[in-house]
Every structure is written in C-alpha cells, then in structure tokens.
C-alpha cells in the first residue's frame, strides 16, 4: 500500500476528521480578479478552501487556472482549482496540471463539464477527449507515478503535490448509474467528493450511505444558501433536476413581501437559511455521513459567520 501523503489544508482537514467547510468563487467575464479576491478574503476565516469555477455553466469567464492562482496568492485562502474536460484535450489537461503544480495549487476538482450547447458559446467545439474519471486518473498518475499517460515527467520536475476531488449528484434519478459512476471515480483514485446542491435530507441520506458503504470517499455536501427571494426563485426555475422546497420558497417570498427594512429582510433571509440547513447538516454529521459541507454561497459571504456559528464551528 502506498502511504497517504497530504499536501493541502483541505485534505489535512478532511483526514483529521474535523467538519470541513469549503466555499465557492466564480470569476466572471473580466480579467479583473479583484472582486473574487475580495470575496475570498471575506470568507477566508470561515472555510478551509474555496473552489474557483471553470467556465461555469459553459459560459466563457476568466481562466480558472489564472483565477485559482491569483485568488490563492492574493487572498491567502487555499483554492480548489476546478478543471473541466470540455475545453481542452488530454494534452491541455496534463499541461494545466503541471502549471497548477508550478503555481502552488494543491487541489483540483476534476469535472467533465457542462456541455457547450448549454452555455453562451453553443457553436464552439466540445472537446471531451477525457471525462471526469479519466481526469481523476490523470492527476493521480502524475502525483503517484510521475507520468502523463505513461510519458515520464522530467527528472527536474518537483513532485506533483495536488489532491483530486470529484463531483457527485445526490439528485440523480435513477440513482443506480450515479452510484456506479462514483464507484468508478473511486477506483480511479478520487480523494474527496463535493456534491451538487441538495435540499432534502431524505434524498441526501440514502445517497451518502451508499457512497460511504461502496467507496468510503469523504463527501462534502453541497448547499446553496440563498441571499433573497429572487435568487431562490431563480435557482428553483433555472436549475434542472433540483427544486427549492415549496414551503422554504414560500417563506422567502413572505420575507420579500413583508414591510421590513432592507436590513431586517437580510436578517430574516439569513435566519431562514440557517433554520433550514443547520438541522440537516447536524443530522448528517451526527450520522457520520459527511466530512463537511460545500457552501455554494457565491456573492453571499455574509452567510458564513452565522452559519458556522449555528453549526458550532469556530472561525479559523
């Protein structure tokens, strides 16, 4: 058996057994990284690491490699570099991983990526030379065997000190194929999983149990705290396969319709999020089904302090 090397704060935290929080950052269609850095600084005390997305939803944005590096450098928050198979072939991916290593990135989230047809450049050529499982395998090959599809890295190449994670979809229907898909990623060497957004413990729990029984890969459960009714409604309508529970949506609507001042409204939204997510997370944590939580609160850094507080976690 190969000894388990730990290179990143994220992996250290996961392996230590502490309840791990990760965040999510989305550079946009600009070469100005400052807003992303600013957000990273705001959430830095409250999470171990944050993902930087790679042309999310197939929309062209600042490169995730540059974004990951600059954000990590400038904010001091460790980054999970999201890398999809949509935009580059295995040669590009191998090169990007070498680049990430040179730039001091320590985690990669290996994704297949949304299809070009679903984004803002539907006429572009989809690459998908690799899929997420292949990408997981490649990172592990580079880290463990010092080669890229069998081509040896140069002697002077430092060790590849990058951990690789993958995505998991608790909302999958049917569930069988998704579980086996994750089993395959586990066989390929995936070290942690971050799930898509889930709202329902009755969906999350059996899913997490299966992953635990069949793979043992640590899972960070994806949640989406919502800044206001507009965001909640937008998510409910725009994201296929996941819906915001009706009663939760109704509560968000009630806050919007209330005569509250802006500040009071924000406070009410915050409370709704916490009342909704915290019991679910505590329950799953108690049952030892999650290693932590991936908080996809893009542009909503203010939710982190009260959410952590309610979870009984200390700022870092």
């Amino acid at each position: 058996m190969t000894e388990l090397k730990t290179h990143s704060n994220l992996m250290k935290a996961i392996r230590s057994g502490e309840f791990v929080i990760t965040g999510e950052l989305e550079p946009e269609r600009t070469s100005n990284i400052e807003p992303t850095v600013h957000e990273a600084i705001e959430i830095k005390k409250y999470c171990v690491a944050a993902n930087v997305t790679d042309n999310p939803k197939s929309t062209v944005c600042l490169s995730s490699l540059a974004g990951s590096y600059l954000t990590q450098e400038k904010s001091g928050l460790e980054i999970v570099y999201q890398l999809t198979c949509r935009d580059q072939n295995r040669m590009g991916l191998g090169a990007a991983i070498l680049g990430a290593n040179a730039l001091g990135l320590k985690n990669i989230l290996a994704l297949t990526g949304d299809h070009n047809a679903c984004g803002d450049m539907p006429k572009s050529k989809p690459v998908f030379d690799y899929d997420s499982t292949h990408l997981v395998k490649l990172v592990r090959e580079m880290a463990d065997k010092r080669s890229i599809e069998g081509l040896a890295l140069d002697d002077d190449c430092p060790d590849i000190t990058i951990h690789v994670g993958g995505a998991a979809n608790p909302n999958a229907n049917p569930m069988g194929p998704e579980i086996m898909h994750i089993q395959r990623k586990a066989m390929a060497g995936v070290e942690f999983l971050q799930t898509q957004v889930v709202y329902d413990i009755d969906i999350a729990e059996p899913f997490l149990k299966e992953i635990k029984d069949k793979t043992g890969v640590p899972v960070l459960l994806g949640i989406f705290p919502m800044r206001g009714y507009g965001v909640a409604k937008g998510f409910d309508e725009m994201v296929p396969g996941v819906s915001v529970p009706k009663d939760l949506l109704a509560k968000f609507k009630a806050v919007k319709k209330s005569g509250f001042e802006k500040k009071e409204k924000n406070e009410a939204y915050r409370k709704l999020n916490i009342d909704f997510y915290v019991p679910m997370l505590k329950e799953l944590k108690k049952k030892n089904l999650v290693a932590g939580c991936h908080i996809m609160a893009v542009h909503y850094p203010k939710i982190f302090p009260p959410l952590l507080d309610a979870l009984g976690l200390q700022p870092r």
Partner: protein
Amino acid sequence: MIITENKPWEEVKQALELHHVKNVVIVACGICAAKVGTGGTEGAAKMKSQLVEHGFNVVTTAVVDEPCDERMTKQAFRKIKDEINEVDAVVSLTCGLGTQAMNTVMREKFPKKVALTALNTVFMGETERFGVYKEGCRACGDCILNETGGVCPITHCAKSMLNGPCGGSVDGKCEVGDYTRPCGWIEIYEALESIDRLDLFLKVREPRNWSESGHQRELNMRDKPAKEEGGDIHD
C-alpha cells in the same frame, strides 16, 4: 444508413451562381438518399422542378445506385457523358461521399466541371420509422458496443463519455437538447441491467485512442496477406 437533408434552396442557388452555372445534370443517389427522400427519383424530380422554376436548364436526370462507389459513378457518367459535356455542372443529390466520388471522376473525365451538392450529410443513422432517423454510430474505429449493452456511448452521450453519466442527466434525460433526449448512459445502464451485466457498467474505460481516427482513414484489404485479413477462418 447515411442520412442527408436538403440544403436551403438559397444556398443551392448561391453555389450555382458562385460557379457560374446555368445548365445542369442532376445525379441522385439510389440507395441511402433515395430511402430518405432527398435522392432517388423522388428527390431528383423535386430538385428538377425547383431548378427549372428558378430559370436553370436541366438537361437530364440520373439515379445511380451507390454513387459513393467510384466505379458505379464512372459507369453512370459514361452513359450520360454527352449531357455532362453539354452542361456547366452536375447537381448532386447524394451524401458527401457521393459528391466527392463524382468530383474525383469528373476531374479525370470532365476536366473543369464540378459536381455541386444540394444536400447536407447529417449523420449515420438508424431508421426508427419512415422519416425518423437517429444517429447511431460515429465510426470511431474501436467499437465498444459489446461492453455497453449494444448502446453506443460515443453517439448517444452528448459528451461521448466513456465513463458516464455526467451530472447533467435529469430523470433519464440529457442536458443537451433541453432534456428531451434520453441520456445515453442511462440507456446503457438499463440495457446492461436487462441482461444482468451491470458489472460491465462499473468498468473504468480508458480514454479513446485518436491516433487512427483523428485524421483521414483508409482501408486497403487487398494488399494485406490473407492471414491478417482473417482469411484463414474458413480453412
């Protein structure tokens, strides 16, 4: 079968104008395109009336079985060589293969003349029923149907994943096409489940080898020794 569809008339007209064409011969495919209705006598008749309506002169019309076979095209062109000599171009109602074979023959036999296609070749497809076709194979050169329950992941999965499904599948439907088409990987799962071979689903499949299919492929069965061809199977 090779599935073709008509190019918009405007585009056909522009191609004819681009090549300064007035007088044409129509040559249609008698096999695939005939079945789809873009070729054959039916497709040729439609094209003829459209051309005539727009002031082009159609000297003759021919239907060729397998115009993608250069020998068949040569033979057919021999029969209408006077007509071809008389016109500016051939209007081809075939897939891209037929049109290219025609141009090969024309470069040799009718220099300075071209075959212009009036069709778009869309895919290699299965026929569900008349007029309903579904792409089924991309000729990847390394068929894995035996591992995937007879469902092609290269074609049925929008990302040609070898280890699917991706996270974009909702209720068994693919994220591409607004959740109207089945997710190929759910189809594969169901196909393997139905033959009690889900163990095959679980296999991590290596990335595809593009070294052969990333460029034009050729196959020459003639120059190979019989053994390599598998010619000794029947011994």
